[in-house]
């Protein structure tokens, strides 16, 4: 049995400790925001936040998240509500809203991980330049966040839009 705190809720789960976090989130908790991409931490489709830091859930054993806060895109509205001191998560996280406003997703398969990377970046750099965004999405270990549809330009626009919304 493992106890995991995911999107603000504690779950006691009958899973082998070496099970990658991704399979636990998807199959046990039915949180399908994080997705299976490469399985070897090379693409970013499975990214989630663990204590606010991006983790590739396809290779992270579920046991590594015990005692920490796991956040998927399903939990981002609550994260934003908490930051703003609101009692209820009634609105989307500004990153999600910016992703809608900029119509970022094409197929959309990688975008859950892209939004997680954006949330982490904006926590560190509230007003990132284009160069800083490109650097964060390309050079942050363990790998670049890859989009095969090629939505990088829309992602840059959306990150800057979200940054503005979060500063205002």
């Amino acid at each position: 049995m493992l106890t995991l705190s995911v999107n603000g809720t504690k779950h006691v789960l009958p899973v082998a400790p070496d099970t990658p976090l991704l399979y636990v989130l998807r199959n046990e908790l039915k949180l399908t925001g994080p997705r299976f991409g490469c399985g070897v931490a090379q693409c970013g489709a499975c990214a989630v936040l663990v204590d606010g830091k991006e983790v590739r859930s396809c290779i992270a054993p579920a046991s590594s998240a015990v005692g920490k806060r796991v956040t998927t895109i399903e939990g981002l509205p609550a994260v934003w509500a908490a930051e703003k001191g609101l009692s209820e998560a009634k609105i989307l996280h500004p990153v999600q809203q910016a992703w809608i406003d900029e119509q970022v997703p094409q197929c959309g398969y990688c975008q859950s991980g892209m939004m997680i990377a954006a949330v982490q970046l904006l926590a560190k750099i509230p007003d990132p330049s284009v160069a800083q965004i490109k650097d964060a999405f390309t050079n942050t270990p363990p790998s670049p966040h890859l989009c095969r549809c090629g939505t990088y330009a829309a992602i840059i626009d959306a990150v800057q839009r979200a940054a503005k919304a979060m500063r205002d």
Partner: protein
Amino acid sequence: MLTRRCFVKLGGALFVSLRLPAAEGETSLDPAQLASWLEIRSDNTILARTGRTETGTGMSAFYAQMIAEELCVRPESITLLMGDTDRTPDGGYSAGFLTGAENVRKVAAYTYQALLALAAAQLGVPAEELVVNDATVSGGGKNIRYGELVQGQHLDLKIPITGKPVSMDPTAANGAAGLDGFVVAGNPPMKTMGQYKVIGTSYPIPGVPAKVTGRTQWSCDVTLPGMLHARMVRPATLGSTLISAGSLDRKRFPTAEVIKKGNLVAVVSPNEWEAVSAARSVDAGTKWTEWAGLPGSQSLSSTLRKYDWGSPAGSRGNAADVTAALASASRTLSTSYEQPYVRHAPIGPFVAVADVRADGAVTVWTHSSHSQGLRARIANMLGTPAEKVVVRWLEHAGQYGRTTFGGDGAESDAVILSQMTGKPVRVQWTLQEDLAWSTVSPAWVSDMKAATDANGLVSAVHSRFYSPNNFDARLLGAMLAGMPGGTTKPGSWVATEWPYDKIQNRLEEAYAMPNLGAASVSGGLRGNIMRTPGQRQQNFALEGLMNEAAAAAEADPIQFRIEHTTDQRLIGILNATAKAAGWEPRASPHPNARKSGIGAVTGRGVSIIARSNAYWVGIAEVSVIPATGALQVTRFTIGLECGKIINPRQLDRCMKSGLVMGLSEALKEEVTFDQGHVTSTDWNSYKILTMAEMPDIQVVQISRDDKGFGTGGEAANAVAPPAVAAAFFDATGVHARRIPLTPEYLTKLLKA
């Protein structure tokens, strides 16, 4: 033909469905069983159904806009149901807007006429005096909503169609017929472009909020009671056959099971992680025969060069005129271009769920871009009537053409495993498996010969395009299991549209050969089409030739193109894109071009492509460090005139993102293989463009009301490789005639 089916107490609707032609009584589809195309409901909502699917380019927005325009309703009132074979009427493959839009447009136009007739009768006002705005019909001082017109009754409208459902056809290169599905017949009155209110606006894609919040149900999310998770154990090489499957350690994997049929080996378990771990363990103990039927990617070009291609599979032009023109030309120019195997390589590997019941009923959950084609192929594999098979479509990672003609990834695996286990089975491919076993976009070699006149203008062109099979949509799981996987024949075609009408002497020939490794159990490197199929590869050669001819003539490459065409649409977008890029006319290479040294040199290059009533222009600006061969595209201006623009914002994003794929193909992508295996099987060995490598992108769009609709998104990738290669020449004075333009290749060129 509008009829009343019955009166109802609650609600009411107008159902718009197909009227099958009498001559096609042999069709296996029962019209009474067919889903309606449109439903106009009493609550003023509209349900539209299409066999086509959203592939990420915005079809779900464009179809809604089309229907809304012809019906005079808001697009928000329309819900689209896409791709399910039991719930959509028309079939057809999802290869872009033009393949399906005319159908929904005509359906809506027919329905509009029926609604007008209903309103005329209800209001007692002649139809031609009625005005419709946002689903409200007005005339004679009276108003009525569409919902009120259908209130309390079920009405039927039958739309005339032509075409047949998909069937297997061994005479076709891709092994199937009826790929377009049903096509709406007749010519109902339609809005003129000048009347458009919805088309031309940036209506958002309906599915985006769900994707961004985690509410979308993707095909990988399907779970069924009792479902088993499967991982495949693939042959050691593309041609190996099974000697013996590895055994399972029951203590470590208590609920897992090895399943095999012929050369298809899998491990299933109710627990996904157990399936993953057990499959790795079984894989290590599984024995396969040796096989070495591939030439190795290092020898790809020489292998293609040595092949006896015979006569062309497709040709266009006048051989006698071209031969004469080349013989009498003052100068000729001969060049050859090479392009490697590349892969569609979506971020999400293939995944599918199948449920094969004891009574023979089969349901498959897929993200195929051609549900009806997949249905026909699965039925063919099982030897069962198509009526027994239902294909349900859900969104997933982009396909970029790899399931065209109904080809599969994990679908036949899942069906076979479900049939054998008697349980629903979900098959998730790994990335490594996907990059080795999915269909692949074949390599091309092109030989170009041009005659030029005394002014350096091109007077004749002879193009010869060579490639392995582009039309293999056979089911991999079926082939490995020894079941009917369908058929394929190497075919080829002249894909380019000729943009230079002043060059009247031209001969284009396309030659085909089987897949590399075709004789193996798996079919070897199974070629299927990929974004801008054939056009991208042939255009790379044609535009490469035009850039080299311009350089030989010491002419500005944009002006040189303008001198070879009278097409004002092409000239218009060339000039507009050049202006946006700040293009100053001069010949290439740049006066400061240099092929050595550690300091960066810069260059710029242009290319065009004409495709499906659309004209594209790409202008690349690059920075090259000659000593290292490092090339960075610093800025790219992409222009498009595609007739009427339906949705400027979605077109903008399609142009930018398609360009990113094209730059990726120009700079990085190459499927590598040795004699037995694909060796580029992860993102470190099959490299695609990263965000940091994306240049500043500037978009130029021209919309016009007098040329109909053209292709919007797809061909964006095709303008990148020739423009970047031309920019490299401009910077260094050295022609690059092969992609990808990797530092290794460019260094070799510069040192030669």
